[in-house]
């Protein structure tokens, strides 16, 4: 197990290196703008642009720039610990800005995960057990709609309906409310709409996924055995059926959490939540390369770490798996 984890961690570093390299290549080989110009502000003198170019080594060969960037990130190589460079826009360090926005993204993700699990899993179970019933058809029909509705559409509809300043039924704090809220509950209230909007598609996907899994599982021989030994149907479904059917959900959940921690770009943008996703979005719009690289690297980091955690968890969930 320990050897496996070490092996996987080496992979994590390799993957993050590759991700960084690809991002770097994409933005430097196909540049949309001159970084030095961006940095220099409005109508700069050519001397200023030139000095910026020199200061940041933008004239150096790309490979030198790349390894300087990597060296700055690694704590023991360059000068001052973890340094993801400086934003072209604000001239501030990238890492503190990301960490500053992380809580909002974590809060958004956690709430949404809890919400979609507590909606999706019961619905999936009920529709699997009552396959073909009107309840099954109804919930699966709604699920299909929820999967098909994109967040930016659903989000705008939600704002249009419930935003407490512009909505038809002004019930809930809307766009930008998260920044304004100061208390925990105030922030939570501000996230009610984003949580619901973000969860809708996930809850639907999880419900359908669990339903399919559980229907398959209930055909297994060991379910027949469980019935043959005289267990109550409730026990057969929950202890024998759901126990197996829910296992693959762990994989799905791990990856989804990883993806969302890297920034729920659409949700954060629609609801103007200053999280990592919003940060990345703004950076892309302004071609703020250090920030783009930082957020991409962070997103990749969460995904590979979550998939490592999932694989380790699996060994505990499924006794057949040994590393």
């Amino acid at each position: 197990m320990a050897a496996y984890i070490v092996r996987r961690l080496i992979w994590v570093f390799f993957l993050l290196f590759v991700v960084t390299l690809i991002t770097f290549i994409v933005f430097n080989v196909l540049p949309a703008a001159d970084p030095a110009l961006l940095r220099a502000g409005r109508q700069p003198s050519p001397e200023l642009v030139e000095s910026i170019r020199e200061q940041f080594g933008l004239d150096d060969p790309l490979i030198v720039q790349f390894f300087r960037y990597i060296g700055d990130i690694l704590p023991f190589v360059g000068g001052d610990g973890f340094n993801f460079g400086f934003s072209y826009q604000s001239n501030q360090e990238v890492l503190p800005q990301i960490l500053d926005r992380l809580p909002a993204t974590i809060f958004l993700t956690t709430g949404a995960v809890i919400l979609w699990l507590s909606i999706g899993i019961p619905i999936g179970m009920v529709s699997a057990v009552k396959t073909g019933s009107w309840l099954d058809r109804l919930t699966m029909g709604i699920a299909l709609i929820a999967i098909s509705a994109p967040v930016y559409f659903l989000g705008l509809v939600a704002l249009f309906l419930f935003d407490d300043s512009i909505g038809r039924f002004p019930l809930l704090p809307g766009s930008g409310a998260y920044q304004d809220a100061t208390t925990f509950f105030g922030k939570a209230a501000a996230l009610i709409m984003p949580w619901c909007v973000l969860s809708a598609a996930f809850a639907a996907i999880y419900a359908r996924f669990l339903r399919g899994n559980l229907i398959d599982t209930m055909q297994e021989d060991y379910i027949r055995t469980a019935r043959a030994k005289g267990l109550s149907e409730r026990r057969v479904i929950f202890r024998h059926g759901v126990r197996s059917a829910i296992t693959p959900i762990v994989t799905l959940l791990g990856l989804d959490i990883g993806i969302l921690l890297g920034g729920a770009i659409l949700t954060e943008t629609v609801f103007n939540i200053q999280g990592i996703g919003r940060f990345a979005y703004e950076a892309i719009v302004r071609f703020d390369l250090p920030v783009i690289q930082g957020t991409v690297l962070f997103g990749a980091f969460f995904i590979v770490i979550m998939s490592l955690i999932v694989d380790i968890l699996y060994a505990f969930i499924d006794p057949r798996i040994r590393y």
Partner: protein
Amino acid sequence: MAAPLLEVEDLRVHFETEDGLVKAVDGISYTVDRGETLGIVGESGSGKSVSSLTVMGLTRARNARISGTVRFGGKELLGASDEDMRKVRGDDIAMIFQDPLSSLHPFYKVGNQIVEAIQSHRDVSKAQAYDRAVEMLGLVGIPEPRRRADSYPHEFSGGMRQRAMIAMALANDPKLLIADEPTTALDVTVQAQILELIERLQREFDTAVVVITHDLGVVAEMADEIAVMYAGRIVEQGPADTIFNAPEHPYTWGLLSSIPRMDAPRGDELVPIPGRPPSLIHLPGGCSFHPRCPFVRDAHRRVEPRLDPVDGNSRHKVACLLDSGTRKRLWEELQAGVKPGDARRDVIGIGRPDADQPSQDAGLDAPRR
């Protein structure tokens, strides 16, 4: 005489499908006495598994139409409430299945799975149930049962898994054990061990056993009674000795001559039954075995045979339209090594109106060429 332990009467299990009504089990009757062993033999699709799952109340498909009676210890099981059936399952009637790997839950330890079976019927503590589970594992011949109870099914070999299944099935001391192809998924060397184990435990626990198999060899040693099923019906039924020594149904002959025998001379060919089991939706008219029967006559395509006693022997019943004398002669011929097609010419040809018509013969012989 006391009522039999299990009485199945005119059991029918039909499934409504889009293609039509699948008559998986179509009016079978049998009884099993206490401590007795019944072997139900047939090809896949003959309805042998469905009939016993129905006895257990495990035919759950919504499109299933079940009729007839299943009495266990005098109590009617068909139509009993879910809770009543749950109490019967695993306590009065236990079941083991074909594939012991897929039949045990992969995520739970073997000991705990047995504990679950015990605790769902007995009001005992977990520790007591666990001790009983370990005892049962020892009884079915698993070495170091206390240590092995703490293992997962995938850590067991195939034979051990089936032993564990048997331990689980017998943990509540059931009166009837239904073994559905208990050895089919196992290595040949392990098969005999498992059958021996079932026999030994049957004696120790005085359990009645229903063995379902496609392999007459499996029931040769264990069964007291044998019922041969074909296309959802019993075509021959009788004491095991009679079925093996004086079978009267051509299908039984086919089953018997397709088993390899140690005492047969080298180079002796096995004789397969030609053709395939019929569709259960569109059963052949008349005797449903007629398309595969080497001894078919024209009338057999129209008249349905009934399961009637042979020579007034109420224990031996056959559903065949040939008369008993002809059947006995045919069996003798086959025993003497005459191939079915030739036996037909010799014996059946006598008095057969269409015996000289080559066209029909060619048609009948076709599958054998």
